[in-house]
C-alpha cells in the first residue's frame, strides 16, 4: 500500500454566517495516495468546485482539515498546482505561452536558465514545443488548456488539482486532452485529483471515483476502477466493465439529483 | 462595518461631510482675499442667487446649454447613424471629422464670435459644435458594432430598412450613444461657462468673472458653488434618464439595478 499524501478529514464548508448561511459541503473525508488519479463526480451544483478550492488552500473550510504530506493546508502549498476550467481567464493575455508558463517560476525566483528549460520541457510534453512565443488568444481553446497544463507541470508539483479542466472544449479536443493528461500523468508520475461532471471522463481516467451527493454534499460512494492501463478511447470504452461502471455511476448520480433536497435544507432553516 | 447597510452609508458620507466641515472651519476666521469664510459665500449665494440672478443669469445659461446640447445630440446621432451605415461616406469624411474632433472646442469661440456674433446664436453654435463629436464618434462605433445576425434576423422577418434602423440599429447602438452623450454633457457644460466669459452680458460664467473683477470674492465663491451645483444636477439628471432608458441593457449585462 502506498501512503496517502493528501488527507481530507471531516471537511465542511458553508457560505455566509448565521441564519443566512448556505451549506455547500456537509462532510467530506478522503485520502489520496501517491501516484493515484482520483476523479470526483457529482450532480451539478453539488459543491465540487468548492471542495477543490478548499483542498487547494484558496478557500478556508468551515470545519475539518486538509493535510498535504502531513502539513495542514492553509494557503496554496508549493507541492500543489491547479488547473482551472476557464483557461481563457486563468492564462494572462499579456504574456506569451513561455511567459505564462514561467510566470510562477519567476515569482519563485527560479534562475532564468532553469526556468527556460522547465518551460521548454513542459510545453514540449503537451505538444506546444514550437509555440512558446505565441499569445494565448492566438490559440484554440484546446491549445490554451494545454498551456495551462504545461504551466502546472513546469511548477513541478507533487499533486495536480484540476477543476473541470476539459469542460469548455469540444468533444474531439476533450478526448485528446484526456489522453494527454494520462500521458503526462504516467510520464511525470504525479498525483492527480480531478473534478468533473462527465461520467465517461471520470471512468475513463480514474483509478478511483469519489461520488458526491447533492448539496450540501457528503461522500456518497468510493468506486475503484480496475480497467487496465494504458487506456484507449475506443478499446477501453468498448469493454463491458467500462459500461458496467458507467451505468453504476450514472444510476447513483441520477438517484442523487432526484432526491428531494428540501428535507436537508429544512434542518438548517 | 462594510457588510452592514448602515455602516456602508456612514462610510460613504464621511469624506464629503468632513471636507465641507474642514472648509467651514478653516475659512471661518479667514481674512484672505482668496479664501473668504464659507459663511459669507453662502450669505452671498442667498442674496444673489436666491432668486435674483436665477432669471437674469442662470436661466439664460441653461437655455443656451439646453438648445446646444440637444442639437449636438440630434445631429450627432443622426449623422453617426448615416456614417456608421455608409462606409464610403465615413471614409470620405474621416479627415474632417478627425480634425474637428482634435480641435480644442474653446477655439470655436473666436470663429463663432467673428462670423456669427457674440450673441445667443454664436454661443449655442459653440456648445453644439464643440460637444457633437463624442456623440457622433460613439454612435458610429455603436452602429458598426451591431451584430450582423441581428440585422439578418430582422430582414428575414421582413422589416424595411427604415424599421431596421429604428428597431435594431438604434437600440443596439444605444449603450455607446449614451457613453457619447455623457462625454458631450461635460464638454457642453464647460463651453456653456467659458462662452460667457468673453464678450458676454449675462450667464453663470459672466457673473463669476465679474464678481472676481470687482473683488467680490464671496460673490465669486457663491457663483463657483452654483456652477458646481449645476454640473452635479445636470449629471444626476443624465444618470436618472440613462437608468430609465437603458434598463434593458443593465439587465442583459447582469449589472443589476
Amino acid at each position: 500500500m502506498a501512503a496517502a499524501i493528501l488527507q481530507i478529514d471531516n471537511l465542511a464548508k458553508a457560505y455566509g454566517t448565521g441564519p443566512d448561511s448556505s451549506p455547500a459541503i456537509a462532510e467530506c473525508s478522503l485520502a489520496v495516495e501517491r501516484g493515484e488519479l482520483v476523479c470526483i463526480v457529482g450532480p451539478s451544483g453539488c459543491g465540487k468546485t468548492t471542495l477543490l478550492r478548499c483542498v487547494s488552500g484558496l478557500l478556508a473550510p468551515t470545519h475539518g482539515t486538509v493535510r498535504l504530506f502531513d502539513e495542514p493546508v492553509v494557503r496554496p502549498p508549493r507541492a500543489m498546482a491547479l488547473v482551472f476550467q476557464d483557461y481563457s481567464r486563468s492564462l494572462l493575455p499579456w504574456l506569451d505561452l513561455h511567459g505564462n508558463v514561467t510566470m510562477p517560476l519567476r515569482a519563485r525566483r527560479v534562475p532564468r536558465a532553469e526556468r527556460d528549460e522547465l518551460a521548454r520541457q513542459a510545453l514540449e510534453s503537451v505538444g506546444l514545443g514550437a509555440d512558446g512565443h505565441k499569445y494565448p488568444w492566438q490559440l484554440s481553446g484546446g491549445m490554451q488548456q494545454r498551456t495551462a497544463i504545461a504551466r502546472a507541470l513546469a511548477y513541478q508539483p507533487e499533486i495536480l488539482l484540476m477543476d473541470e479542466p476539459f469542460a469548455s472544449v469540444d468533444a474531439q479536443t476533450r478526448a485528446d486532452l484526456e489522453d494527454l493528461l494520462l500521458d503526462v500523468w504516467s510520464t511525470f508520475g504525479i498525483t492527480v485529483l480531478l473534478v468533473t461532471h462527465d461520467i465517461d471522463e471520470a471512468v475513463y481516467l480514474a483509478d478511483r471515483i469519489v461520488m458526491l451527493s447533492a448539496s450540501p454534499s457528503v461522500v456518497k460512494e468510493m468506486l475503484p476502477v480496475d480497467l487496465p492501463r494504458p487506456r484507449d478511447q475506443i478499446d477501453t470504452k468498448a469493454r463491458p466493465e467500462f459500461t458496467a461502471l458507467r451505468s453504476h455511476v450514472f444510476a447513483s448520480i441520477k438517484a442523487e439529483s432526484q432526491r428531494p433536497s428540501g428535507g436537508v435544507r429544512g434542518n438548517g432553516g | 462595518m462594510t457588510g452592514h447597510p448602515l455602516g456602508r452609508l456612514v462610510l460613504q458620507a464621511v469624506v464629503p461631510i468632513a471636507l465641507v466641515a474642514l472648509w467651514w472651519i478653516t475659512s471661518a476666521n479667514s481674512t484672505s482675499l482668496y479664501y473668504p469664510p464659507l459663511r459669507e459665500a453662502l450669505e452671498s449665494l442667498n442674496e444673489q442667487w436666491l432668486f435674483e440672478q436665477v432669471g437674469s443669469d442662470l436661466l439664460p445659461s441653461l437655455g443656451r446649454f439646453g438648445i446646444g446640447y440637444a442639437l449636438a445630440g440630434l445631429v450627432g446621432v443622426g449623422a453617426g447613424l448615416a456614417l456608421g451605415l455608409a462606409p464610403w461616406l465615413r471614409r470620405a469624411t474621416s479627415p474632417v471629422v478627425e480634425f474637428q474632433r482634435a480641435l480644442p472646442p474653446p477655439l470655436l469661440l473666436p470663429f463663432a464670435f467673428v462670423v456669427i456674433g457674440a450673441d445667443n446664436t454664436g454661443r449655442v453654435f459653440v456648445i453644439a459644435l464643440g460637444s457633437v463629436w463624442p456623440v457622433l464618434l460613439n454612435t458610429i462605433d455603436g452602429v458598426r458594432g451591431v451584430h450582423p445576425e441581428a440585422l439578418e434576423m430582422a430582414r428575414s422577418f421582413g422589416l424595411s430598412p427604415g424599421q431596421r434602423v429604428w428597431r435594431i440599429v438604434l437600440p443596439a447602438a444605444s449603450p455607446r450613444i449614451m457613453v457619447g452623450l455623457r462625454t458631450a454633457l461635460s464638454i457642453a457644460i464647460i463651453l456653456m461657462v467659458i462662452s460667457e466669459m468673453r464678450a458676454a452680458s449675462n450667464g453663470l460664467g459672466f457673473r463669476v468673472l465679474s464678481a472676481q473683477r470687482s473683488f467680490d470674492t464671496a460673490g465669486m465663491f457663491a457663483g463657483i458653488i452654483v456652477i458646481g451645483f449645476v454640473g452635479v444636477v445636470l449629471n444626476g439628471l443624465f444618470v436618472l434618464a440613462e437608468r430609465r432608458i437603458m434598463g434593458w441593457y443593465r439587465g442583459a449585462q447582469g449589472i443589476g439595478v
Partner: protein
Amino acid sequence: MRVRVRDLAGRAALPACGLAVVLGAFELASRTNVLPRSSFPPVSDIFAELLRIAGTDEYRTALFQTVRGWAVAMGIAILMAVPLGLLIGATKVGYLLARVTVDFLRPIPSVALIPLLVLIYGTRPALKITLAVFGAVFPLLFQAMYGVRDVDPIAKDTARSFGLNGLQRLRWVVLPSCLPFVITGVRIASSIAVILVVTGEYIVGVEGLGRSVFLAQSGADYDQMYAYVVTAGLLGLVLNSVLQAGERRILFWHASQRNGG
C-alpha cells in the same frame, strides 16, 4: 507589391477627395462672400499665413507653451490619480469612502475655478496647469478605481494557487489587468487637458496658442487668428495619434486592439 500600392492609393483616395471637397467649399464660400470674407478668409490665405508665421519665434513659443502645459498637467494628474485610484479600488473601505466624493466632485466643471485661479495665479502658466490637472484627475482616478475592481478573480486565484505573494500578484496580475482602464483614462484625460489648457490661454491670457488666437482676434488679423486655430487642431491630431500609437504598442494583447487594428 503593385497591388499593395494600388490598394493604398484606393484607401487614401476617398478621404483625400472628402478633404479636398470640404476645403474647396470653404475656399469658394469665402471668395463668393457666402461666408463673409471679412471675417472668414479663404482657406488658401489661412494656410499661406500659417506657413509665413510657422518660422517665427512667437509661433514656436506659443506652440511650445501649449504642449508644455499639457504635458506637465498630464504628468501631475497621472502621478496623483493613478496610485490613489488603485489604492481606493483595491480596498472595500477605500472604495466606499471615496465613491460618493468622487461621484460628487467629478461633474463639477473645472472651469468654475477660473476666477479663483486668476486671483491666485494671474496669467502665469500655473493657472492653466492647475485647471487642466483638476479636469484630468477625475477620469484617471475613476478609471484606475474601476480597473482594480475589474481584475478577473480567476486570474487572481491562479496567481494565488501558484504561491505568488501580494506584491507579486500586484506586479504580475493586477497592474497589467488595470492597464487598459488606465490607458482609456489617459486618453479621456488628455483631451480634457487640451481643452482646459487652451481655455486658460484664450479666456485668461496665459501664454500659448489660445492667447495668440485671442491677440490676433483682437487685432482683427483673421488670417493669423485662423492660422493659430488650425495649428491647435493639428496639434490635437498629433497628440491623438501619438496616444493611439502608444496604446496599440502597450495593449497589443487586449481584445480592443487585436482584431481590425
